[in-house]
């Protein structure tokens, strides 16, 4: 009897696992993402670009698209008053895990219920700029942690490297099972070469249903690539060349204007 029961239970469990996996499989099939272009070329005339992201999500889902750079360590000084009058750079803080770029586009509001405690907020909020606070570490531990993170985000926003744009992803209802979306990431002109990722989230009632991460690479090409290589791998030669070109430029201008004067 016991063996029978055990067998039945095992069969049920296996079937259950299979069914759940099948279910997950169906969900994944419900989300597709297309990114155009997936490589950013930083050539001589690069001045920012537009990445088009299209795809499908399960019906009834909202979409969040994030363009994220690698996490870096930043050394920043906090400004404070000296003698109660003069603003100076005072204590230095080490900010750890700061993404160098963070552009967030969403079809819905991310800051859902601000009255709730931060821990109790839903997953949608965890995708927002404000939630970077959970990822960034500060050393030495400051008294006004939240304030410093807010200032960091403000500074990065002013530099055009952080952005949060609600309602900028368009979602079109589809056949009842899927809906299509379209987002445009405005990549800033002040972009350093390196690896970036585009994260797409499908959300239902503030919960993340599905996620897809696609790597995007920004690389220098043409003349900027040549100069960058020279500056970092042949630094002395680069410095000497830069100086000589400047002197030659000055001399040339001197000759041109001198000749003009001589003709008078």
């Amino acid at each position: 009897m016991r063996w029978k029961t055990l067998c039945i239970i095992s069969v049920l469990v296996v079937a259950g696992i299979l069914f759940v996996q099948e279910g997950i499989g169906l969900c994944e099939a419900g989300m597709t993402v297309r990114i155009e272009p997936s490589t950013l070329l930083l050539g001589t005339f690069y001045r920012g670009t537009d990445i088009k992201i299209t795809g499908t999500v399960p019906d009834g889902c909202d979409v969040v698209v994030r363009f994220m750079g690698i996490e870096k360590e930043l050394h920043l000084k906090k400004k404070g008053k000296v003698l109660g009058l003069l603003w100076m750079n005072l204590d230095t803080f080490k900010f750890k895990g700061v993404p160098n770029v963070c552009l967030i586009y969403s079809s819905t509001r991310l800051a859902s219920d601000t009255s709730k405690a931060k821990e109790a907020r839903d997953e949608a909020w965890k995708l927002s700029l404000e939630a970077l606070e959970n990822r960034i570490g500060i050393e030495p531990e400051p008294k006004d942690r939240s304030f410093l993170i807010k200032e960091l985000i403000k500074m990065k926003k002013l530099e055009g490297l952080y952005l949060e744009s609600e309602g900028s992803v368009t979602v079109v209802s589809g056949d009842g099972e899927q809906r299509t979306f379209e987002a445009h990431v405005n990549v800033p002109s002040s972009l350093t070469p390196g690896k970036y990722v585009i994260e797409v989230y499908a959300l239902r009632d503030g919960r993340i249903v599905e996620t897809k991460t696609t790597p995007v690479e920004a690389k220098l090409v043409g003349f900027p690539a040549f100069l960058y290589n020279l500056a970092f791998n042949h630094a002395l030669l680069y410095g000497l060349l830069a100086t000589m070109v400047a002197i030659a430029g000055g001399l040339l201008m001197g000759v041109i204007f001198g000749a003009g004067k001589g003709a008078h």
Partner: protein
Amino acid sequence: MHVPWYLYLPIAGSSVNILLVLSLGLLVGLLSGIFGVGGGFLMTPLLIMIGIPPTVAAASDSNQIVGASTSGTIAHFRLGNVDFKMGILLLIGGVIGGTVGVQIIKILRQLGNADFLIKITYVLMLGFIGSYMLMESIQSLKKSKKAVDISEAPVPAGESKYAMLVKKLPFQTDFTRSGVRLSILMPLVLGVFVGILAAIMGVGGGFIMVPVMVYLLRMPMHVVVGTSLFQILFTCIDVTIMQAYTNHTVDFVLALLLLLGSTVGAQFGARISKKLKGEQIKIFLAILVLLVMVKMLLGLLLPPKVFLAYTGGH
């Protein structure tokens, strides 16, 4: 065809409007040709404003000044305004002073609160130099209208003791271009002094060097401008190579755009400088120095937009 007005700067990691940068260069070159200052006080903050990282802005600016001061020195040399002997002596002193200054600042930083002391000293010094120059040159301009002005270099009352002391120093020699007879020690020691200050303040030193040449070396204003440019040229060659080698912060594309504008500006500046009287140049320079001082003071007094700042030399 679409005209590309923007260029991507590989070291700064940002793109800039070509016309904007060219006109910035032109403006700063003009100032350097008229007054014999490097123009870093104006250029570096403007570059930061258009999105260039501070370290790259300062280093690329010094690369640009190499071009502008070459152009300016040639233009002033043609006008007979460069005292090479004086310039080289000041330069030697400046290099020694700069080295000493870098050590002093290390000690100051260890003591803490160095930035505060430096900024306050700089503001006070600019204020003092600016107002003294302004009052002195306005006075002598009034005098020269009444009486026939003999010498361009004024001798303010109460400085006769200083003049006596200067005459007693050994190694007296003639500086023909400047039309003064002085001890070799004078420019050397003053060069050291300006070098130390420039290293501590983190500025090129033109603002301090020009008044020192006018009031302590008694050089005529036009020669001061030319000789100052000649010195700035060498200081900036040194800075550019050092920055490129150790910090990789010189953006050549940016520097090239700037110097296209500034070399032209420096030529016109020298021409304008020639047309102005020594006193007039002094008055304008004094106003410029005071404006820079007011700007720095406001930066200290007004609450900042963001309460965080990048540390220098990250």
